[in-house]
């Protein structure tokens, strides 16, 4: 068990190396430091010395993969790829283009992101499971048919619509909560309320449908028939047996996305003016700040792999039948 989990953890290393190589190629080979310098110094009328100076100033002066001027193994070490990778794996992301430390910004912005993402996640899970159970309870009735149609309709609405409509009605017309903004601390609740409700709404169609299909699959199994044959009433069957077994795939699936909650949501945060990691990325995109985007890609991959690892852990914990070799 322990060795299995350790091996799974070790499996993440080559994947992170791959991610690092891919993002490095994307950001430094397709868009060479010379291009970056030209972009920052103004596209036209840039002299070569100015480019070199910019590269030295921002630490991009070394060659990409192989430094022919250095002897032996230093030819590989004194390169942009090596240095950037070492910093990346040490979780030292350097500075963004406006000279601020990226690591500090990440730490400061994770909180606001989580204050939206975590309640959304928990509330969404409850709402979706509840609705799905209700549909399964009323399966093959008009309520079920209506519910399934409603989930398809909800799924077909653009997420932008939920945000825009929510802001218009709840915040603009009814003036129940502020349209956008954020304050740290306990007072933040009326700023995060609307984004949370809107995000849950946007996910409810997909989630309910998916969970309903999981519960329906579960309800067709033999142990359910046995339970009914024993004379258990329907609610006991549904809430004791089906819910518990159906929760295994649902919760292990949820565990996989748990670490990614740190990343926040690009759309929600930018619409509601939440100073989280999602809006950090949006700002970086608009400013064409590749260092920030690259750092976020790396962090996202690390979090995803942690999620995969946690899923393995959760499976072995939730389902004693699962044995790893």
């Amino acid at each position, binding site marked *: 068990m322990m060795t299995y989990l350790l091996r799974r953890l070790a499996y993440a290393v*080559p*994947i992170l190396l*791959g*991610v690092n190589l*891919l*993002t490095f190629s*994307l*950001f430094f080979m*397709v*868009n060479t430091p010379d*291009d970056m310098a030209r*972009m920052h110094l103004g*596209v036209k009328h840039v002299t070569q010395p100015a480019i070199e100076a910019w590269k030295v100033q921002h630490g991009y002066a070394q060659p990409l993969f192989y430094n022919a001027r250095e002897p032996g193994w230093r030819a590989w070490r004194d390169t942009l790829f090596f240095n950037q990778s070492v910093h990346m794996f040490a979780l030292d992301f350097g500075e963004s283009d406006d000279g601020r430390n990226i690591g500090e910004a990440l730490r400061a912005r994770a909180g606001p992101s989580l204050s939206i993402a975590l309640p959304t996640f928990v509330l969404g899970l409850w709402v979706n499971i509840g609705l799905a159970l209700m549909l399964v309870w009323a399966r093959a009735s008009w309520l079920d048919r209506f519910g399934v149609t409603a989930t*398809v*309709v909800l*799924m*077909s*609405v*653009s*997420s*932008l*619509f939920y945000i*825009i409509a929510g*802001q*218009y009605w709840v915040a*603009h017309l009814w003036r129940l909560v502020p349209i956008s903004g954020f304050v740290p601390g306990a007072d933040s609740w009326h700023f995060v309320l609307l984004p949370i409700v809107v995000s849950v709404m946007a996910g409810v169609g997909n989630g309910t449908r998916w969970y309903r*299909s999981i519960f329906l*699959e579960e309800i067709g199994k033999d142990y359910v028939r046995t339970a009914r044959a024993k004379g258990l009433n329907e609610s006991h069957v549904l809430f004791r047996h089906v819910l518990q077994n159906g929760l295994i795939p649902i919760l292990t699936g949820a565990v996989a996305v748990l670490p*990614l909650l740190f*990343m926040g949501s*690009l*759309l929600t945060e*930018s619409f509601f003016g939440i100073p989280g990691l999602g809006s950090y*990325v*949006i700002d970086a*995109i*608009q400013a*064409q700040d*590749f260092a920030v*985007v*690259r750092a*976020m*890609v790396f962090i*996202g*991959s690390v979090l*995803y*792999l942690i999620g*995969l690892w946690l899923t393995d852990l959760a499976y072995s914990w939730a389902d004693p039948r699962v044995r790893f070799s």
Partner: protein
Amino acid sequence: MGWQPVILWADGLIWLTVAAVGLLFWRGADGFRAGWQHLWRKPVAMAAGLVLLCYVGIGLLDSLHFRLRLPAQAGMSAQYSVEVNSVLDVLIAHLNAYPEQTYSAPLAKHLFVKMPTILPDGHLALTYPDLTLYQAQKLGHDEQRARGRGQEKIRLGLRGVLVGVLLAAAMTLLFAGWQAYREGMPLRDLLRTALQGKHPLPWRTGWATLTVLCVLGAMMAEWSTVYHVLGTDKIGQDVLYQSMKGVRTGLMMGTLTTLVTLPLAVGLGIAAGYFGGWVDDVIQYIYTTLNSIPGVLLIVAAVLLMQGFIETHPALFDSAASRADFRLLFLCGILGVTSWTSLCRVLRGETFKLREQDYVLAARTLGVSDWRIMGRHVLPNLLHLILISMVMDFSGFVLAEAVLSYLGVGVDPAMASWGNMINAARLELSREPVVWWPLASAFGWMFVLVLSANLFADSLREAFDPLGRRR
């Protein structure tokens, strides 16, 4: 007047897809055709399919591009206009023929905002000026028609309803005649069973859907001769025109992105499942790595880099249309590269099971080559999974276009798309009085397309996957 066809890359791909789908119907495997016939018997599939066909029709008309020949000048070879037009542009040109100054509400006679105008007595006053479209109507027609304008909305609407109902009835009859010919049944018998709902095909649903579509279309066509049916946007362009132009972009995003994912998912999924061993390890490594990168960020990064590429290589693109085309294709490409992994995983697992089947073992002992086994024995048994996943992903890609355009990394800003419409209209709801129609129109057109695609996908899954396996 002469013209010269222009085949943009995206157009070529989309027509190739249409041809391929047609070929699949014409020469497809029997099981495939049976599933397809089963599909049309579901009322939901019939209704959703007809709506989808309507969208596809608009999109295809908008994918036939050409350039007009400029008026000939003595001693010069034929010159063609720089502007690339599509057949749809010509058909609905009258919608955009009278650009207004700024916002006007749907079916309005006046602009939505007051403008300083000089009154007949020479004074300057803030009034709601008449729309240019209205003025053009007044000049173009006699006095009587202009005076009767109050009832004109109703008159034109009723005429639209009439035309629509007749058109739908005629089309249904045409199909019924064809079906009666195919079944060797008198038309009257077929119509009777159809009306009673005893025919296997849901004729009543089909007829009702056609009627709704035709009535809506005919009413819009009638009204659009005198009004801006869905109003005009901030710079006075007709919203209906833009929404219809957005159909092509939405369909392209859905279709081309699916086309990009297919070879990757199918090829790698089957290879991983069939060969196992190190091939499987490598392919698993590739898709886990790709999966672990947050998709949106990868798309954003790639699109930013592409924008830089377009800026530094302006010579490669000879017209604005080809630049927009390149951008659309690139976007589809990168969106496809980030979203093939889930289908690949499903196909890998399914191939693992198929590999152990007796007929595969038999083929292998008979010395059939690996490639042939994969093509003849494995792939056909995966077709339903591929088809279901294609249609299910389609709607996701259409929705993704709007989000990406909102983030500023979507299709070319000059290209008509629902995402760009939403992006341009993002501040309009905070205006007082509120301007709702550009947003409502973009969301509405997108919603109908995505909803019918989703409903169609559901029916498709039920028709082709009787075991009800979920992804």
